[in-house]
Each structure stands twice: as structure tokens, then as C-alpha cells.
């Protein structure tokens, strides 16, 4: 595998690099750092979200959903998860619906994380 395969923004299914690229202005070290933080942080964020939901602690669910927004936005996921996160912040939907939202968020974030790991390989 070539040492520095340049990725192209369009080559991933889920994640979108336009936000990172806009901020980084070509600084690959920054891009790598932030993708790394995403990869490390997302599993913890998801675990907390699910834990609070299972415990019925909806105040904390709301906080968690809000907390995750910058994390998912960094890889352009906010459009895909906007409805779900907003519903979790508003807490107006039925329990079943909220549960489904959590599952969606979990799924999307995990797929994104896998792609992010792949992305990390492409940085030197």
C-alpha cells in the first residue's frame, strides 16, 4: 500500500470531509488529530447515550445528544442524524420512537467510525 494515499472526499459512503477540510486549510496534521479524537471519543459518547436512555434518565439523554453534536458534525454526519438528535433534545416523541433514534445514531456513528479508521490509514 503506498505510504501516502491521498483520499478523495467522495470516496466514503457516510463521512464527509468538507467541514474538516474547510477548517484545516490543508493542515493534514490537524485533520489527522481530529479524526483520531472522533475515533476515540465516539464509542464513549454512544455508550453514555445508551446508558442514560436505558436508565430512563432523560435529562442526561438530552445533554448527551447535545454534547454529541460537534463530534458528529466534524465528519459531516449532522445532516444524516439531525432529525434524530433534535428529537432526543426535544424529548417529545414516544419512547419507541426515541429508542429507534438511538439505534440509528448508534448504527450511523459506528459505520462512520469504521470509515474514519480507514481514513486514518491514509494519513502518513
Amino acid at each position: 500500500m503506498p505510504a501516502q494515499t491521498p483520499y478523495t472526499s467522495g470516496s466514503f459512503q457516510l463521512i464527509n470531509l468538507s467541514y474538516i477540510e474547510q477548517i484545516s486549510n490543508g493542515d493534514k496534521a490537524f485533520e489527522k488529530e481530529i479524526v483520531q479524537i472522533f475515533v476515540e471519543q465516539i464509542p464513549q459518547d454512544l455508550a453514555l447515550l445508551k446508558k442514560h436512555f436505558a436508565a430512563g434518565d432523560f435529562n442526561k439523554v438530552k445533554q448527551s445528544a447535545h454534547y454529541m453534536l460537534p463530534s458528529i458534525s466534524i465528519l459531516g454526519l449532522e445532516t444524516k442524524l439531525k432529525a434524530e438528535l433534535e428529537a432526543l433534545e426535544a424529548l417529545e416523541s414516544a419512547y419507541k420512537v426515541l429508542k429507534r433514534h438511538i439505534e440509528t445514531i448508534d448504527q450511523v456513528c459506528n459505520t462512520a467510525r469504521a470509515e474514519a479508521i480507514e481514513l486514518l490509514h491514509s494519513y502518513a
Partner: protein
Amino acid sequence: MNCLIVDDNKIARTTLKKLISLDPSLVLVDECSNATEAYVKILEQSIDLLFLDIEMPGMTGMELAQSLGQKRPLIIFTTSNRDYAADAFDLDVIDFITKPVTTVRFLQSIDKAREFRKTKILPADLIEEDFIFIRDSGTVRRLQLDNILYLEAQGDYVKIYVASQFYNIHTTLKSVEEKLPASVFLRVHRSFIINVSKIDTLEGGTLIINKSLVPVSDAYRAALNKRMQIL
């Protein structure tokens, strides 16, 4: 300007750190993941500009801002919720940036901060409402600020001039001055406050506003010139 980032999310902090590095006049002193830590840092160090998340566990960003007193730094809130704008009324808040923060939006807010440091005028479009309520002989009336041309003190009353009429309200000029946004309404004379956006001409020491003459006294001339930034 010395900057401090306060946000419980590491990705948000790292992004802001990168943005701050884009501007050579900004120095990032530190980053904090909670308001309590930030409070201590602000007391210990000279911080000019705070990038403050509002919703954090424990002390919120708003509570931190409110606890800082007179010597508080300038504040740029990074949040997703503009509903907090009303709470921020007294606080020298320069801007509310919604997340995810874009480069353009960030640079705009830095410009606003710089502008404020120079002119001490807060951005007018941020937290101020565009109307006031006045008591007009028994009726409480809403006045759009944009319709007010100027105000004149007369004895125990203040006359508020709008397009084709005026309202007489029983109050002092000073007390009205406190309620009007300083970026738009400027005292030009012991008895006059004007709406800067309604000035037609300034000749010698006299303003013409909607064909009325409003005097500018020596004491206020410098402030008026500064505000008008005449080319």
C-alpha cells in the same frame, strides 16, 4: 487578544484551537473542559476573549459569564441555541456562533470583538430588541426604534419624535438613554439624544434630522464624530 476556550467537548475545543491559530493577533492562553476550571483561570490570568459553550454539565457557560463581574472578558458564545440571547443582555456578549463553527463565522466574530475593543460599541443586531414600550397618557404603546428620529428633554418630560408627530413621556432623558441601544442612539446635547441612522446632515454644530434642527454641544462633539466615522 488573549483567548480562553471553554467547552466540554474535545472536538469542539480542538476545532476552535485551530481557528484561533488562523489569526496572528489571537493568543490561546488555555483550554478548559468546564466552567469551574475556567473561572479560576480567568481570575489568575489576563484573558481578553472567551470562547464559551453554554450547555455544559455543572456550571453552565451562562452562569460563568454572569459570575464574572465587571472585569469579565469579552464573550463569544458557541452554542446551538439562540434562545439564550435574552439572558446575555448585560454581559458584553460579542456574538453567538452556532456549531459547527465555520471559518467565515469565526472570523466575523473576531472582527466584531476587535471592533468592540476599539469603539466600545456592541454589535447592534445581536441581543437588543428593536422596540421599546412607552406610556403615552394612559396607553402603553410599542415604538419601533427605527421610527424614532430624536428625543428632546423638556422639563419633567421627554419628547420622542417620530415621523410626523411626537410623544410626550414623563421621565428623564438619562433614564431613557439607559434603555436605548447605545450603538444607535447617541447623546449629542444635554437635552438631546439622536438616532444616528436618521442624521441627514451635520453642519457646524447642528444636525438636521428629518428637517428639524438638533444642536450638538461641545461636550458631545467628539463622541458624535467618533460614532459617525466620517470619511
